[in-house]
C-alpha cells in the first residue's frame, strides 16, 4: 500500500513511543502457503471474522433501539423494521450475516480438518476454534429468542427441553437456562445477557487468542507437502485479497437484505416477525429450530423413549457428547498428521461427518414427506437417502479423481447408514449400529495392521 507523507509521520510517531516498527516488520514477514488447491481455503478464517465484525456492528446498532421485556421485545423489533430509517436493513443484515458466519465457520473448520492444520504445534488453535464454534451456536440460539415471537418462543422451548436429559444436572441446567421451569420472559432476559454481553466477551477473547496463535505460528502448510511451499506475503498481497472478498461478501449480504428481508423461506432460515409469543397458545405445527441445530433435533427424534434401560434422550445426548469430544480431540487422535504424514483416514472421517450431519438435517426438513398433516417418516427417510446417494457419488468421484483419495471407510459407513435407514427401512439406530460397527471393525483391523507394519489402505504412494 502506498504511504503518504501523513501516514508515515503517524507511523513514526507511534514507533517512537511503542516500537511499532518491530511489529510492522514481523507482520511484513508473514506468509500464506500456496499449494495446488489450497489457497482458497485460507480465506475462510478471515471471512468468518468479517461476518463476526458485521454482527458486532449491526448488533450494536440494533441495541440502540431494542428493549427486552414482555411488552417491548416484539414491539421494539417491529418498530426497528417498520419505522426506524434503514432499521429493516440493519436487522436484515444482522440475520443474514449470522447465517453466513456459521456457514463460513463450518467450512473453515472442515477445511482445516482436511488440510490437517490442527497438527502440532497448532493443537490449541484447533481447540480455540472449536470453542468459538460452540460460542457461535450459542449466539445463534440466544439471539433467536430475542424478537419474542411465536416462532422463536417454540423453537426455544423445544431446544432447551433437551438439556433436561443430561444426567444428574439436567433439571438444574434446564432451570438455569430457562430462568424457571418453563420458557418465560425471564428466559429472554438471560438470553439477552448472554447474547450481548457474556458471549461477546468470551468470543472476542477467544478470537484474540486464536489470531495470536495463528500470527505467532504462521499459517499451516498442507500436510505432506514434499518441499516447502511457495508463500504469498500476507501484507499486502493476501490481506488485499481478503479485503476484496469481504467487499464481495458485503455486497452479497446487502443484496439479500433487500430482496429477501425475511430470510430464504426455508424452515430454519426465516425470520419474519409474525405474531407475538403467547405462552398459553399451543405449539406451532412444523416447529423447527434453526438449521444448524436440525441434526440434534432429528437425532433426538430417532431415539426411542427407552434404550438399554436408560432414557432415550439421555443416551442420545451421550452419543452426541462422545462425538463432540472426539471432534475436540482430533489433534491428539490423528497420529499420522502428528508425524506430518498424510492422514486420509481423518480426511475421510471429516467427509463422513458431513454425510452424517447432512442426512440428519435433510430428514429434519421432512423432505419428501408429502402434504399430509404429519409427514410420512418412511418416505422422508427414503427421499433423503436417495439424495445422499447422489451426493455421495458426486463427492466420492470428485475426491477420487480430483484429489486422488482412496480411503472411504467412514464416509462409506455414513452413507451405508443412510441407505439402510432410508432404502431398507431399518431403524436409524440399527442402521447406525451396523454401519458404525463395520467402520469400527475396519478401523481396528487397520490399527492392528499398522502395528504389524503393513501400509494402511488409502495411502497414496
Amino acid at each position, binding site marked *: 500500500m502506498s504511504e503518504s507523507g501523513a501516514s508515515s509521520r503517524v507511523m513514526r510517531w507511534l514507533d517512537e513511543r511503542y516500537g511499532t516498527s518491530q511489529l510492522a516488520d514481523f507482520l511484513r514477514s508473514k506468509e500464506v502457503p500456496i499449494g495446488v488447491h489450497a489457497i482458497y481455503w485460507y480465506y475462510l478464517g478471515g471471512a468468518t471474522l468479517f461476518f463476526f465484525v458485521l454482527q458486532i456492528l449491526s448488533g450494536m446498532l440494533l441495541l440502540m433501539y431494542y428493549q427486552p421485556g414482555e411488552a417491548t421485545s416484539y414491539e421494539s423489533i417491529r418498530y426497528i423494521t417498520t419505522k426506524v430509517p434503514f432499521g*429493516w436493513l440493519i436487522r436484515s443484515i444482522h440475520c443474514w450475516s449470522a447465517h453466513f458466519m456459521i456457514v463460513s465457520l463450518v467450512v473453515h473448520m472442515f477445511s482445516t480438518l482436511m488440510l490437517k492444520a490442527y497438527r502440532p504445534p497448532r493443537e490449541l488453535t484447533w481447540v480455540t476454534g472449536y470453542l468459538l464454534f460452540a460460542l457461535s451456536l450459542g449466539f445463534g440460539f440466544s439471539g433467536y429468542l430475542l424478537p419474542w415471537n411465536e416462532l422463536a418462543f417454540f423453537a426455544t422451548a423445544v431446544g432447551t427441553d433437551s438439556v433436561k436429559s443430561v444426567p444428574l444436572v439436567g433439571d438444574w441446567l434446564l432451570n438455569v437456562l430457562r430462568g424457571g421451569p418453563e420458557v418465560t420472559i425471564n428466559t429472554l432476559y438471560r438470553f439477552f445477557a448472554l447474547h450481548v454481553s457474556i458471549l461477546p466477551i468470551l468470543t472476542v477473547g477467544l478470537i484474540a487468542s486464536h489470531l495470536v496463535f495463528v500470527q505467532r505460528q504462521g499459517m499451516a502448510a498442507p500436510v505432506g507437502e514434499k518441499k516447502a511451499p511457495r508463500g504469498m506475503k500476507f501484507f*499486502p*498481497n493476501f490481506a488485499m485479497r481478503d*479485503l*476484496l472478498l469481504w467487499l464481495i461478501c458485503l*455486497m452479497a449480504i*446487502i*443484496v439479500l437484505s433487500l430482496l429477501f428481508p425475511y430470510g430464504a423461506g426455508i424452515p430454519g432460515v426465516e425470520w419474519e416477525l409474525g405474531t407475538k409469543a403467547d405462552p398459553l397458545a399451543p405449539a406451532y405445527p412444523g416447529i423447527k429450530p434453526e438449521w444448524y441445530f436440525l441434526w440434534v433435533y432429528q437425532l433426538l427424534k430417532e431415539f426411542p423413549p427407552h434404550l438399554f434401560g436408560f432414557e432415550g434422550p439421555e443416551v442420545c445426548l451421550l452419543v452426541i457428547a462422545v462425538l463432540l469430544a472426539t471432534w475436540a480431540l482430533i489433534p491428539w487422535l490423528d497420529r499420522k498428521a502428528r508425524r506430518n504424514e498424510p492422514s486420509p483416514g481423518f480426511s475421510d472421517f471429516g467427509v463422513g461427518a458431513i454425510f452424517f450431519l447432512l442426512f440428519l438435517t435433510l430428514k429434519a426438513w421432512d423432505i419428501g414427506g408429502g402434504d399430509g398433516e404429519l409427514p410420512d417418516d418412511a418416505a422422508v427417510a427414503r427421499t433423503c437417502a436417495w439424495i445422499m446417494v447422489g451426493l455421495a457419488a458426486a463427492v466420492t468421484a470428485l475426491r477420487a479423481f480430483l484429489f486422488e483419495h482412496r480411503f472411504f471407510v467412514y464416509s462409506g459407513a455414513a452413507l451405508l447408514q443412510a441407505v439402510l435407514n432410508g432404502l431398507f427401512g431399518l431403524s436409524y439406530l440399527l442402521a447406525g449400529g451396523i454401519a458404525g460397527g463395520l467402520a469400527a471393525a475396519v478401523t481396528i483391523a487397520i490399527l492392528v495392521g499398522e502395528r504389524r507394519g503393513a501400509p494402511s489402505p488409502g495411502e497414496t504412494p
Partner: protein
Amino acid sequence: MKPLLLALLFLSAATIAVAAPDPGAEEAFAPSDALRELLEAEGDEGGPMIGPEERAYFDALPSRAKELFETAIEDELMTEGEHLQVILALGLRAPALELLMQDSCIVCHTDPWQDSEVLFSPDPAASDSPAHLDLREFTNDVHFRRGLSCAGCHDGDPLDTVMTDPVYESMPPAPERHEDRRWVPEFCARCHADPAIMRRFDPDMATDQYAKFRESQHGRVLLVEGDSKAAECVSCHGVHGIRTSRSPRSLVHPKNVPDTCGGCHADAEYMAGYVGRDGEPLPTHQLEEYRSSVHGRALLEGGDTGAPACNDCHGNHAALPPDVTSVAQVCRNCHAGNGELFDGSNHKDAFDRNGWPECGKCHENHAVAETDDSMLSDAADSLCVDCHERFAEDNEECAETPRYFHATITSLAHETDELEEQITHLAERGLDVDALASTVDQGRDVLRRARSRIHAFDRGEFVPLETEGREVIQAGWSLVDEAEAEYRFRRNGLLASLAIMALLAVGLWLKIREVDARE
C-alpha cells in the same frame, strides 16, 4: 429435683395434647345392625351390592346424613340393599343428600320395588317408569335445591310415611291430568304469580308469566279452546328437572330454546290442522330456516347469546304471532341504527300502508341471511328491482337510487379489497404497512356504515359516505404509492452502493495485480 419436675410437666402436657379429643370432632358413628345388613347385602353376581366407591362415599358422609338412613330404615321405608345402593350411587354432596333423605316421599318413591308407574329412578327407561320421574334430573331441579321438595307441589307432609288425602287432592287425578292439561298453568301460578311468595326466593323474578300466558296464543288454545296439544308450563320448563334459564342444560337456555320450541313447531304431523290468521296452515320449517340464518348460526354454532332465539322476537309467555310492526321493534333492540334510518325514510309509510314487515320484507323473518351487495343490484331478481317494478314503475328515482347504491358500494368494496391485497404484497418486501392496514380498517368501517345508511333509502343521505369512502381509498392508494416509492428508494440506494462497491472492488483487484507485480 427441678429437672425431674420439668420433665414430668412436659410429659403430661404431651399426653394431654395427644389424647385430648379435637374440639368439634364428631363421635364415631356406629351403624346399627339393620343398616350394616343393607350395607353388606349381596348383589346378583355374588359380590356386595354396595361397591367400594359407594362404601367410601358413605363412610365419608357426616353423621347427620348417616342418621337419616337409620331413620328411613326404622320407618321401614328402606328395607333393601338395592334401595340404599340407588341413593348412594347418586353421589350427592352431603347437604343435598340430607335434603333428599329428610323427605319420606322421595325415600319411599325411590324404592326399586315400588310400582314402576310411580317409581322415581335414576334411569326411567331402564326401570320402565314414566320419563318425568327421573331421579338424577330431580337432584338438579331448582325447586328441590331451594328446599321446595315434593310437598311443595304435591301437598302432604314430608314426614308422613304413608300417602294422605291432601296428596291425592293436590292435583287432578292421573291419568286424566296427563291428558287434559288445563290445570297446569293455574297450578304453577299459585306461587309464581304471587309476588309475596316469589319475593322470598328471588325478589327480582317476574310474576306476570301467568297473566301473559292467558293472553298468548298457547294460552288461548289451551284454556279457551280446551286443546291440550298447546304448550303450557311443563312443556317448556319440564316438571321434575327444572333448571334456571341461565343453566346451559336448561330447556329454556337461549341455546336450547330453538329446539324446545321446535319440538312441536317443527313437527309437521303435530302441527297438522292448525292454521294461522290468514287461514293458511301453520308452517313448520321455521326451525330449519332459523338454523341456517345468521342469528341461528351465531347462537347455535358460535355460542353468541346476544343473538336472538325464538322467544326474543315472539315473546316467552306472551307468545303471539308477532305483528309486522312489533317484530321490527325487536330488531331495533340491536339494529337500532338501521331502525332509526328506516323510520325516517320514505319506505316506512309505504311498508306500513301495505302491511309489510318493515325489516322482514327484505331480510326475511326466520331465514335471515348474511347480507350481500347483490341485494341492491340491478339484476332482475334483486330485492329493490323486484318491488319497484311492481309498485313504483313510474318513479325514475326508485329505479336510479338502488343502481347508484350498488355501484358505489361494490366499487368501494372492490377498492378496499385491492388495498388489502397490497398489504401482503408490500409486507413481503419488508415495507411498513401499519398505516395502510389502518386505512383498510377505516375503509371497511366506511363500507359498514354505508351499507347501513342504505336504510334511509335516500341518495342525499348516502352521498357523504360515498365521499368519505372515496377519501379513504384515496388515502390508501397514496400510502401504497409512498411505500412503492420507499421501495424504489431502497432499491436505488442498493444499486448505488453496489456500484460504488463494484468500482472499489475493481480498483482493489487492479491494485492487487499491481502489488503482485511489484514482487
